[in-house]
């Protein structure tokens, strides 16, 4: 519950029936608001993701390409001791964005078609997990060695950039994995309390 929701609760209660009923409701809402404010002083919890990504049906990618994309993104950001691209529904989000590019940025769709053509040509979907990792190591080599070239590098960068963006802006990536603590309601800013940082 955000502070806004709490104040709305009060307003709704205030505009409801009068007399005893009004006051009891108002008090409940006020107590709820006070409780919520108290939580805020500890840092308000991030809200849930309003989208039901797990139920999302791909619109841009074919079923086969979507499977390929899922294998690629979960190799980029795998599920290990923390959730990965799959739990964050990265591929679903990418499909949603690329599909929506039709209106103002059709060239974006062309880039993704070329990337999927390339991966189909490499038979990426048939590779084992180890083969996928060594394939990605090969096509990503110019990241570490800028003088090198690889025909798959452009496609790798396209998918990686979008995957990284999708993952770290998802609730899973931002809250569960990065443990981001900002964007909260606080009564005081927690400044640096490390004496050693004053003598760097």
């Amino acid at each position: 519950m955000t502070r806004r929701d709490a104040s709305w609760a009060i307003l709704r209660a205030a505009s409801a029936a009068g007399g005893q009923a009004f006051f009891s409701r108002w008090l409940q809402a006020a107590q709820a608001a006070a409780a919520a404010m108290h939580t805020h002083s500890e840092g308000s919890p991030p809200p849930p993701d309003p989208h039901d990504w797990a139920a999302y049906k791909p619109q841009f990618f074919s079923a086969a390409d979507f499977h390929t994309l899922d294998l690629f993104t979960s190799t980029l950001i795998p599920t290990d001791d923390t959730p990965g691209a799959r739990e964050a529904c990265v591929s679903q989000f990418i499909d949603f964005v690329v599909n929506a590019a039709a209106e103002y940025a059709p060239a974006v769709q062309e880039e993704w078609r070329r990337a999927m053509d390339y991966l189909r040509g490499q038979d990426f979907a048939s590779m084992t997990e180890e083969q996928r990792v060594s394939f990605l190591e090969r096509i990503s080599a110019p990241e570490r060695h800028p003088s090198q070239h690889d025909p798959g590098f452009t496609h790798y960068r396209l998918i990686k950039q979008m995957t990284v963006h999708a993952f770290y802006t998802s609730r899973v990536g931002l809250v569960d994995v990065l443990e981001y603590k900002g964007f909260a309601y606080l009564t005081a800013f927690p400044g640096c309390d490390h004496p050693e940082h004053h003598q760097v």
Partner: protein
Amino acid sequence: MPQKFDVIIVGSGACGGWAAMALTQSGFKVALLEAGSHIEPYRDFHHQWPYQLPFRGSGQPGFLRRYCRGATEYNYRLMIDDVENPYTTPHDKPFSWSRSRVLGGRTLHWSRACDRLSDLEFKAASRDGYGDNWPISYTDIAPYYDRVERFIGVSAARANFLQFPDGVFLPPMPLNCAETMFASAAGRLGLPATPRRVAQLTHMWNNRPPCHYCGNCVNGCDVGAMFSTVSTTLPPALKTGNVTLLCDSIVSHVLVNRENRACGVRYIERYTNRTIELAANVVVLAGSSLENTRLLLNSAKGGLANSSGILGHYLMDQIGGAAVSGFLPVLKGAAIRNDDGKSSGLYFPNFTNIAPQTGSRGFIRGYAMSATGGAAQFPAFAPDLPGFGSSYKKQVKTLYPAFARVWLSGGEMLSRKENFVALDPEVRDKWGIPVLKITCSHCDNDRKLYADFFTRAQELFRAAGGEIVDAKPYLSPPGSLIHEVGTCRMGEDPKTSVLNSFCQTHDVPNLFVFGGGCFVTTGDKHPTLTMMALSARGCDRLTDLAKKGEFA
């Protein structure tokens, strides 16, 4: 017979909002015209997590291209639509103009920095022989700085810097870990450093609540803890009952009578395209530096109040460009803290050319830097970090709290006549008003100043123990700092200036121009506080003259 107002104010940003408050409180009947739409912070501003937005902040692909630079999925409704409101530049001289047309203007999403200029800026020409002095000195404006700071609320630490005068301050916000390390490094390098002075409340002030440290400032503050017209100056103006607020009203002309006095404005209703004339005894332009000048240029052949021929010239922005960024190893793998909740940072006021001997580093004037670091909402370094898989994921997490940057928060761009705006003879906006053609470029001094910043910022970063990752110098095109000032400069001599020191036009005594247009030099400080202080001073002058019957 249509109603005649005492004063028409064009624009509701920092200066228009202040003027509306000051003049209505003096008893004037005021019409406040705003080209953009009405906005209610409590209704229209929300805390939105990226995953709550359909496109996680980036907008539908391609959609935000029509908006000015700085527009995101969070805030594009506050930003101007460049397709409806174009401007032109020569092909080889790009200029980046970020505007807002909405009640409150750019105060809704500004960076909130409140800096006082000193006589090092006001009297710079006397020190190094370049350009002109301002017609005012620090003592003329200091009481107005006090008045504005006291009302809007500025959180800052007293520092006693010659080049960065102290003011009326609320308690400063504490520094985060990265900023503490940069402050420590600055101490050893002998650089001045202080928490950035910002119009964000650290306790209840003038019926406004304190900051709740969400860090959402640039998307609009939902509680009014940061200064904006809608949170701070408009409510007291409305309370007087003396203001008629007209939103969606695009002013095309200042109307002038046969005695060369301003007698009102002509405006176009944004949605109906109806043209309406409004009469007043005094006209105050406060629609931003360049929009004010555009309006003057469009109001008379050769430009209204332009007997000097100077109107449009001496355009300045401030110098900005690529930051120095990287990691502070001490913070690698540290427990994640709320580092970006106050979104202000550490400020390094100018430290060059302060000694009596100026120009010893090969350039004149100065620049200010800022630094911050820590876990920001999005790990900006991650897309370019090589690798993938579990090791990549762990590396992002380790580096997340250690990312830091030092950036140029403003360098003085020299005032030059050949940087100017004029009406484009061919291009008009959606309402048929001629648009500005902006001709602006950097000079050698500007480039040397940026190069010096880049060297110093790297020294600072290393002194804080940092590893620099991204250090490619790049000077941003003029306009990028969104500190565009000049084109309507103030001065003693009507032959070489448009305004007197009270922001009143030399040629048309009942026409005032508030905003950055009057700036003679840009200095290295953020301009808004000075613009507001000059507006407050101009309002005092306007009130005095009106009481003497000058505008009857």
